[in-house]
């Protein structure tokens, strides 16, 4: 285990489970914690949101990424909403890769806790939201074009 690796699961209320990871993530670290994560995922289908707090994560190797992708696929099969919070661009990229490649349309990366909890409280999917916003931009572009 790397010296500064940290892992904690908390449930501040019955509608939210927070999985906090910190330090350098490797496949070895993820192997040690994934059974604890699975216990939480299997507990109640769809009745809570999962918040992955990666703000303390500095690096994440490909093995850890793959392990989290697998966990996210299992979360997707439960129709549970998830949000990732990361304060480093690289780790947000890792989170985007995980949610995209796991095929979980109810998961999204964010830069801060507030944005993430707001997302968990909504009902729209990630791609649905992107398309909705894209339509708004299309109309914005169209409006500007009409004025020129």
């Amino acid at each position: 285990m790397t010296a500064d690796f940290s892992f904690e699961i908390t449930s501040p209320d019955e509608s939210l489970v927070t999985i906090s990871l910190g330090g350098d993530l490797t496949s070895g670290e993820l192997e040690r914690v994934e059974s604890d994560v699975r216990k939480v995922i299997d507990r109640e289908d769809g009745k809570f949101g999962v918040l992955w707090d990666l703000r303390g994560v500095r690096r994440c190797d490909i093995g850890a990424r793959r392990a989290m992708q697998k966990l996210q696929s299992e979360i997707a099969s439960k129709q549970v909403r998830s949000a990732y919070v990361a304060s480093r661009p690289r780790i947000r990229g890792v989170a985007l890769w995980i949610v995209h490649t796991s095929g979980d349309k109810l998961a999204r990366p964010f830069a801060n806790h507030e944005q993430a909890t707001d997302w968990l409280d909504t009902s729209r999917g990630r791609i649905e939201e992107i398309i909705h916003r894209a339509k708004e931009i299309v109309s914005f572009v169209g409006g500007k074009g009409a004025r020129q």
Partner: protein
Amino acid sequence: MTEDKPLSASERFTVGLILKLNTMVTGELHPAHTAEEFVRVMGVRGFFRYLGFLNKFNKMMHDAFGPANTQTLVGLAALMAGCGYCGYGHTLTGALMTFKANGQLHPVHPFSISQLFELEDHEVIEKLDELLAQPGYEDLRRQTSHMYAIFLGDLEPETEEDKLLKAILDFWRWTVECTIVEGINMTPENARIMNEIGRDKTLRTRYEAARAVERDAATLLH
């Protein structure tokens, strides 16, 4: 998982066409993985609709920010989202356009932003502000600062400029949804040019030579 989904014959044909067109336009071979993911996620028709919209979007942004600054801002929006493919590619394109226009080496380019991916957001903001403190980059410095604040939810866009910056962030969330499959592993050395300026090989050679002189001078100073 999306990457395991096989492409149909017509989708594979479309990917081949996209790669050929992209090489014709940019003068560079772009990775097949990204084109495959766009087609896999959006479908053939969806991808061409996306391209049509991208052209309109680029025109609007060029009118507002200028072509070089648009490329740099798009690259920085991709940096915020964590995508190296767009982050490096668009900042390199912006840097080449700037070099062609006035012979200046842009402070924001793949190698100057590569370390920023690993930093905390507040550190990234500081570093970008330092990079863009040179004379001539005042607008880009302000726009970058506002775009990051909008990204973090610290600034609600009120002005026309801020609304356009938000549109870049939103539009590139759509794009990096697919490019992240390549962007997760991309290094600055492998940055791909994103528009027709890539066909100007003489410009690229001159730019790389000027960057080498700048690097050597920086090494001597340290």
